[in-house]
């Protein structure tokens, strides 16, 4: 039994312009101490699926499917049960550390709040533990920092505080949604090191949501690639980069500027067209209109995920590194 088993998760939003299918039949599992990377471009449903796991979506969202965690189905569980899981067993780190911290409370109070609420510590104990936690995420002079306000910290430091808050109750799962996107590269490197360190020292499983294939290459054990609300490929990290199978994954990897990425004319490889509107998802391959391998079958049938190599799943009728039709 995996730590977390997500089965056929779908999220639909009813809007004035009809319903939007943000996530369409997503299944995956997460093992103890594993770092799972979820990659995709804006609007592919990666953040929405993570938020649905903790029932953090607004009322307009219709969530179906299941997510088994510790004998409980997160999707159907009553809110009262979830309150003991959120922040305690499964913790979240968001992209923008400035807006996720309350500007009018000291760092120590914001950390202490979590400790008092979930672990029942008193104020003195909470403060001592807060200092330990800041030290754990390698914030220098933690005793001084607990007395400071968020605006007195740099972006990188704020993100470390967010991670400290997330780790306060020693969660089993840390969901990090674009944790380094707003940060400079030299700061990003430090945060990635910290996450690696946390996994090794505390054994926390991490779901890392990002659009950055470099970040995933750095830290993930396994990767899920999403497109238009669906999982199109899943593989162990080395396998995914060494032999990407889905044309979308291949396109994404090819579009990143790096030495050797440009074609003979010195141009970057583009993915033609644009992401489809989620309101009118076809009963076909969603990538078909942009895919060089698309044919009649692709345009009329939805490809199911299948295992093309051990642990390597792909939802495509024509998978393969070089576009060889199988």
């Amino acid at each position, binding site marked *: 039994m995996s730590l977390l088993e997500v089965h056929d998760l779908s999220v639909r939003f009813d809007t004035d312009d009809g319903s939007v299918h943000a996530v369409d039949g997503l299944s995956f599992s997460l093992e103890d101490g594993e770092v799972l990377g979820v990659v995709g471009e804006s609007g592919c449903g990666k953040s929405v699926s993570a938020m649905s796991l903790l029932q953090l979506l607004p009322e307009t969202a219709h969530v179906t499917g299941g997510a088994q965690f510790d004998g409980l189905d997160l999707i159907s569980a009553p809110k009262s049960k979830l309150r003991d899981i959120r922040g305690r067993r499964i913790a979240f780190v968001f992209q923008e550390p400035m807006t996720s911290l309350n500007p009018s409370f000291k760092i120590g109070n914001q950390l202490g709040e979590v400790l008092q609420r979930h672990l029942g510590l008193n104020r003195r104990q909470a403060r001592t533990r807060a200092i330990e936690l800041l030290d754990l995420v390698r914030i220098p002079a933690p005793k001084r920092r607990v007395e400071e306000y968020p605006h007195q910290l740099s972006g990188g430091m704020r993100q470390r505080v967010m991670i400290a808050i997330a780790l306060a109750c020693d969660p089993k799962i840390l969901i990090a949604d674009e944790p380094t996107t707003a940060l*400079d590269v030299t700061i*990003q490197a430090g945060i990635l090191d910290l996450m690696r360190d946390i996994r090794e020292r505390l054994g926390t499983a991490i779901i890392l949501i990002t659009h950055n294939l470099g970040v995933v290459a750095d830290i993930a054990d396994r990767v899920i690639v999403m497109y238009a609300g669906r999982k199109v490929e899943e593989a162990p990290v080395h396998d995914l980069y060494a032999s990407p199978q889905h044309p979308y994954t291949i396109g994404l990897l090819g579009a*990143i500027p790096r030495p050797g990425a440009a074609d003979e004319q010195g141009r970057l490889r583009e993915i033609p067209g644009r992401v489809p509107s989620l309101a009118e998802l076809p009963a076909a391959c969603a990538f078909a209109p942009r895919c060089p391998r698309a044919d009649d079958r692709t345009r009329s049938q939805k490809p199911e995920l299948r295992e093309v190599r051990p642990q390597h799943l792909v939802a495509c009728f024509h998978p393969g590194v070089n576009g060889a039709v199988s």
Partner: protein
Amino acid sequence: MSVAGDVRANGAPTLELEDLVMHFRTGRGIVGGGSVVHAVDGVSFSIAPGELLGLVGESGSGKSTVANCAVRLLEPTSGTVRLKGRDITHISRREMRPLRRDMHMVFQDPYSSLNPRMTCGQIVGEPLRVQKLGRGRSLDAKVAKLFDQVGLRTELRFRYPHELSGGQRQRVGLARALSVSPALLIADEPVSALDVSVQAAILNLLRDLQSDMGFSCLFITHDLATVEYLCDRVAVMYLGKIVESAPTKELFASPQHPYTQALLSAAVVPDPEVQRNRTRVVLEGDIPSPIAPPSGCRFRTRCPVAHESAPQSEEEDPPLLEVARRHYVACHLVRPGRPAPALVDAAELRA
């Protein structure tokens, strides 16, 4: 000046900055006081006709302030800005107006930089109208041609910005900037807000347009990889100063300044084999506040080697010296004929 681009025999550089300084006063209350933000502190470079210069740096390095001074959205505290040889540092808005034809800007966020109440056609045609370069049918025809040039369907002229995708909006921004055939395009993080697949298309477009139209370009970014793809020459900024500048190939083949090496080593590579086995230069702490920049070498507080190898860095600000042909470095440890401290194997950076 020290960092000079190749200047064509008969012409002045398109843009020339000489010892540019931009200080801002902050927090000054009724009782006076307040402090000075040293956003840009003595930046010099020039861009030759048709040249693409990449200006790279992290947040707070002053790269956008340099751009804003160059287009005279800001009046610099001191120093000189020359556009095609003409000093524009202190000229009035009115005098500036006709010169705006020669330089245009593309911004990071293509949504907030387009007027939501204007159609995309009106947006693209506005500079032409203001500069009296077209009206009526001839203006419409020019706008339609521009849409075609940037790869937008001409029907989109009648749409509003909110109806377009991010990539399409950035194409509108480019069409507007290039409508008056400027000599200089300043692009401030033009692809940072876009998805990877869209980024590639915009970078390709920028490259194609440049080779067709031949404008000079100041390309501002935090992403070294896009610079390598697009630019002829690169200048790296740290805390208001240029710490290194060189032709692109040279900079990536042999980065000299410890900061440049750290930046290159910190950029993530989309390949787990490479990414997990490379040496990373870890910089301690954060970029210092530009209100009180460190004395001497501004990078010394985070430099992995300054403390032991360059004790003079506490007092002396290292000058930008030419250490190889057209390769300038501001570091006490780098001198002509003396190799830079190698924090990372250059071959590893290129993997």
